């Protein structure tokens, strides 16, 4: 199936000479949740802004559903909803008016029933006649989502949807995202909360310094780059590692009471059983063991650190 969003060799250099994007290629599949990770200033927002039409690209091409975002902007932008990073709202408007305005600006005829459904889905219905400035930060964020959904987009961009949002609301937001996906909406979210990507994304892209460093299925990524560590608490301390264990990737703790073995997530079947066998042969006993898997955060830090 053709990707719903296709980005080819995209570059952007701002007027002040800052190169925000250095040739990004990215294909987004219909119906997926893609998380774009990256530190501040990595180019995430610029990338989204170009796809949505807010920023002009310097070179390269972006297609949405087979249409060019510059030439066929009416077709592409009708398909896209954007929730910006900043809480930018018309403070003196009511929730109902601002969401209805969004629908109109996207060229859709008024549809009160749909707006009602969107507001109800986002638990905003009771606030429909309130002015936006009376709402809490979390509610304002949901108003922005409601505005972005008012014209029933096929692709939704969420630029750091949970920045500065408390834990409960973050969970709530994730549920909203999940629900949208069930309705077939393709979702692209940028975040620097790695747990967010880990929790809800299907694929993860890592951007740094204007380059897409990696784009991978989340599970594959965790398996490929995720490292596991086995820690054995020994019954009796060892003075040094016996030569018989030299073939294993082992580290002895300073006090000699614990052995650490690091291995790749996808080679688990090989090294651990043979290590345990070797320990028995060497007559080394342990009283406890634990394993730990590296998180997406470790992977991310390693990756960004490496290229920085």
């Amino acid at each position, binding site marked *: 199936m053709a990707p719903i969003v296709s980005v080819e060799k995209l570059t952007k250099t701002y*007027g002040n000479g800052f190169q925000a994007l250095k040739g990004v290629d990215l294909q987004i599949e219909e119906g997926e949740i893609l998380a774009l990770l990256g530190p501040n200033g990595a180019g995430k927002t610029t990338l989204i802004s170009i796809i949505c*039409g807010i920023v*002009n690209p310097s070179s390269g091409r972006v297609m949405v559903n087979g249409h060019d975002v510059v030439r066929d902007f*009416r077709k*592409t932008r009708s398909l896209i909803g954007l929730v910006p990073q900043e809480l930018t*709202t018309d403070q003196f408007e009511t929730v109902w008016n601002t969401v209805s305005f969004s629908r*109109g600006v996207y060229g859709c005829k008024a549809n009160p029933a749909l707006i009602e459904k969107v507001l109800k889905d986002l638990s905003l219905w009771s606030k429909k006649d309130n002015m936006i400035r009376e709402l809490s930060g979390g509610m304002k964020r949901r108003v922005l989502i409601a505005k972005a959904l008012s014209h029933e987009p096929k692709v939704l961009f969420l630029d750091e949807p949970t920045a500065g949002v408390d834990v409960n609301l973050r969970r709530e937001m994730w549920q909203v995202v999940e629900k949208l996906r069930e309705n077939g909406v393709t979702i692209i979210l940028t975040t620097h909360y790695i747990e967010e990507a880990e929790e809800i994304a299907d694929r993860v892209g890592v951007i740094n310094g204007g380059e897409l460093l990696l784009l991978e299925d989340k599970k594959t990524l965790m398996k490929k780059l995720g490292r596991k560590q086995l820690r054995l608490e020994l019954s009796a301390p060892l003075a040094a590692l016996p030569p018989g264990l030299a073939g294993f990737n082992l580290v002895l703790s300073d006090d000699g009471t614990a052995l650490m073995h690091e291995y790749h997530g996808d080679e688990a079947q090989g090294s651990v059983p043979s290590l345990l066998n070797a320990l028995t042969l060497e007559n080394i006993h342990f009283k406890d063991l634990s394993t730990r898997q590296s998180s997406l955060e470790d992977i991310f830090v390693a990756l960004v650190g490496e290229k920085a």
Partner: protein
Amino acid sequence: MNVEAVKSIYTFEMARMRRTILQSVISPVITTSLYFIVFGTAIGSRIQTVEGVSYGAFITPGLIMLTLLTQCIGNGSIGIYFPKFTGTIYEILSAPIAMTEILLGYVGAAASKGLIIGLIILATASFFVEIRIAHPFMMVVFLVLTAVTFSLFGFIIGIWARNFEQLNIVPMLVVPPLTFLGGSFYSINMLPPFWQAVSHVNPVLYLVSGFRWSFYEIADVNPVISLAMISFFLLLCLSVIGWMFKTGYRLRS
């Protein structure tokens, strides 16, 4: 053409006028009434007539123009500047709307507001002085052309301005001297020859003169030249906006 979008922006902007009715409608009416009381009645009673027209009636077209210019520039600039300032402009820029439709929505609303206020002031004036309109059709033409031109000019300022000071500098510092020196309150024939010549550089002179001609058939410059000049300003503003849209000047970085 995204008619719904133009309608939405237009309605949204007009709603702002309703919401701020004190500031948008009542305040210009009060200001203009004060002008009539001070210039028209208090001082005007000591001036007999200007070119055969009572002074109060003579200044009416100029007063309408003064308010029309200020209002159109103000509304035209704030309409586009405010979303830029609050950041809500992202929505307009990411929506399937052409720049011409954005222009139509914002400038259409600004010009409509200006026209409404201009007509209210004309009605207010008729309470103070006797108004006679010799060429009603041409009066409307001058009114509409001026409203559109200066709303476009306001739109340019709104895109250009980076802060509120820049936004206000033209309506506060440039428009009042031009209007006062553009023959709103006197005929430039009353000036010494040198200042008469200087006045011809002032674009507002052509607006006021043409507009006054449509009322009393008296003019400082030929009404055809007035019309040509307004059309020229209109085209000038459109070209500047065309360039701004093409380059994405201060809108799409």
